[in-house]
């Protein structure tokens, strides 16, 4: 699979404020720097497991920024660190999560890293089992609709995960009941070692929408602004009661599947190089610079701030308390 050609439109053509563009860039960069630091910590033996979203930041930030934080719900999957940042997770919390610290708000060390979830922020707790969350998202959308709350739910998964029965049952249910769910598929080309052709029989993952009579769109997932525009429209429609939408963001997994994986076994280096040239963060920086929206100094300042934030977060989090052994007990049931 080859990288799509980038859009040529200047950024000013979009209805995004300068502030929004800055946030966009910051979130993407923060996610990347966090992931880089995490992988470093893994290589140093401090963090036993890392699963990252490198290459998918534009898709994630573009999509998440199209939602109304505080109102809308997010049912993410493990790569969606950047989405969680948009929904309010701090760098320090991300690092607490990495180290499985007692105070990680996602799961307090009970789940693997990158298994997100925080009720108050409307981020739905997630397991390792792929695609199950699409049904939870559908249930939340059903509930919101029954309560006439103006909530939109975004449910995310990889393209490989669209093979599962739960994907079908979720889209079918949401389509029949016209529920406000955006199914957001981050097509990064691989499900571990399996290329998309082994998971999806159509040209685009978004073609699956046709089987449910709902709208579908394939967007360049390396372009945060384009993703934002498309998702924003889908969100607005859904909020107006027009039902679900399936969006495929074509992006690329720039790293191996996880810190445990060796992708040289199955992935051609040339393909990787081709996509790396389209690194969404590099591209974004070039564009905002070229379009004259931000001077290089501003961007450098953001980078420096983020580097410091990430450094601090890692250091701070590492010093936080671990769970006690017996913290394994408790909260099996909610006390009424």
């Amino acid at each position: 699979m080859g990288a799509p050609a980038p859009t040529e439109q200047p950024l000013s053509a979009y209805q995004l404020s300068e502030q929004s563009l800055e946030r966009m860039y910051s979130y993407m960069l923060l996610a990347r720097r966090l992931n880089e630091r995490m992988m470093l910590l893994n290589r140093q033996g401090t963090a036993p497991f890392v699963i990252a979203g490198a290459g998918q930041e534009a898709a994630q930030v573009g999509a998440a920024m199209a939602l109304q934080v505080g109102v809308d719900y997010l049912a993410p999957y493990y790569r969606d660190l950047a989405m969680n940042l948009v929904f309010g997770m701090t760098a320090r919390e991300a690092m607490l999560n990495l180290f499985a610290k007692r105070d990680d708000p996602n799961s307090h060390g009970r789940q693997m890293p990158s298994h997100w979830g925080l009720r108050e922020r409307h981020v739905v707790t997630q397991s390792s089992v792929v695609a199950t969350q699409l049904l939870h998202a559908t249930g939340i959308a059903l509930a919101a609709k029954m309560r006439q709350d103006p909530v939109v739910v975004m449910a995310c998964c990889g393209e490989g995960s669209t093979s599962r029965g739960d994907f079908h049952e979720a889209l079918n249910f949401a389509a029949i009941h016209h529920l406000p769910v955006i199914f957001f598929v981050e097509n990064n080309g691989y499900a571990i070692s399996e290329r998309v052709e082994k998971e999806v029989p159509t040209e685009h993952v978004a073609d699956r929408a046709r089987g449910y009579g709902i709208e579908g769109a394939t967007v360049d997932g390396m372009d945060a602004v384009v993703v934002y525009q498309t998702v924003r429209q889908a969100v607005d429609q859904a909020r107006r009661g027009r039902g679900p939408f399936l969006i495929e963001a074509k992006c690329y997994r720039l790293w191996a599947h996880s810190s445990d994986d060796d992708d040289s076994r199955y992935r051609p280096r040339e393909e990787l190089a081709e996509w790396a040239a389209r690194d969404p963060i590099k591209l974004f920086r070039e564009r905002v610079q070229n379009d004259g929206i931000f001077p290089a100094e501003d961007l450098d300042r953001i980078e420096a701030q983020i580097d410091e934030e990430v450094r601090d977060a890692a250091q701070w989090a590492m010093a936080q308390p671990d769970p006690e052994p017996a913290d394994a007990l408790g909260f099996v049931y909610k006390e009424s």
Partner: protein
Amino acid sequence: MAVATVIEAIRSTLDEALEADERAFILGEDVEAGGVFRVTEGLKAKHPAQVLDTPLAESSIIGVAIGAAHYGLRPIAEIQFADFIHAGFDQLCSEASRWCYRTKGDSWLPMVVRAPWGGGVHGGQHHSQSIEAFYAHLPGIKVVAPAFPADYRSLLKAAIADPNPVLFLEHKRTYRLIKQEMIGAPAETVLGRARVTRQGRDLTILAYGLMLIESLAAAETLAAEGIDCSVVDLLTLQPLDVETILESVRTTGKALIVHEDTLTGGLGGEIAALIAEHAFEFLDAPVRRLAAPDIPAMPYHHAMEAFFMPDRDKIAKAARDLAAY
């Protein structure tokens, strides 16, 4: 409703729950038309916004209920036959049972999954199963399996009020079989408690669902022969009321566990193990289990079905042997 069948007890409890709390709603296959057992009959007309037909897809019924419960509603999902819940096993095991645990109490799921189970209705392989052993092995889920109308009523009420996922098992053979005067009937109102339905000296029979009814009948027969049985209605299968179980066995010194599920790996193993470990010194005889033979679920033909199912005669025989030990 002075005297009620199990179906009537469940229906009126659902009706009241929908009435009392607009967050409560029923979802499942054919529930709008009343369901195949007519349990939800009339409820759609009375509460049009709270009864929802779903597509024929069990994983979605449970997964959607999870989402709705997380949002703050009180979904009451119906699985048409317990036999069809297995496609939703992953959603119950990997998701519902761990929702609270994996967030350390940050999130929780006030949801009920109702499922008609059990045999003796000529339902064959896939309309007769006992599924409790699979689901009682999921910490984080509660499993309830009453026998008498008043318990169905009070425990369903408790299940709906519970902030945790509850699998509420309705023995379909008891649906219309058993009538009970509802006012003043003994009823457990708390999940997790067993009841000594009959107090006896010689041995303890432990059962639930239809087998509880059969065990009580067997106990009557045995009483006439001079064998005096305690009969414990387990009522909640997860978490088990270990204290009540042990106390009864410690008193009688002999235990017979009865279930309709196949023997090996059935819930009877767990109960026998608890007794063998914690009432060992009180035991006057081996802990006995009476269960269905180890064949895959229930054969359809009535002769083979009867062969498969434990019943009052088989229970009486097993209890007689045990008493004579």
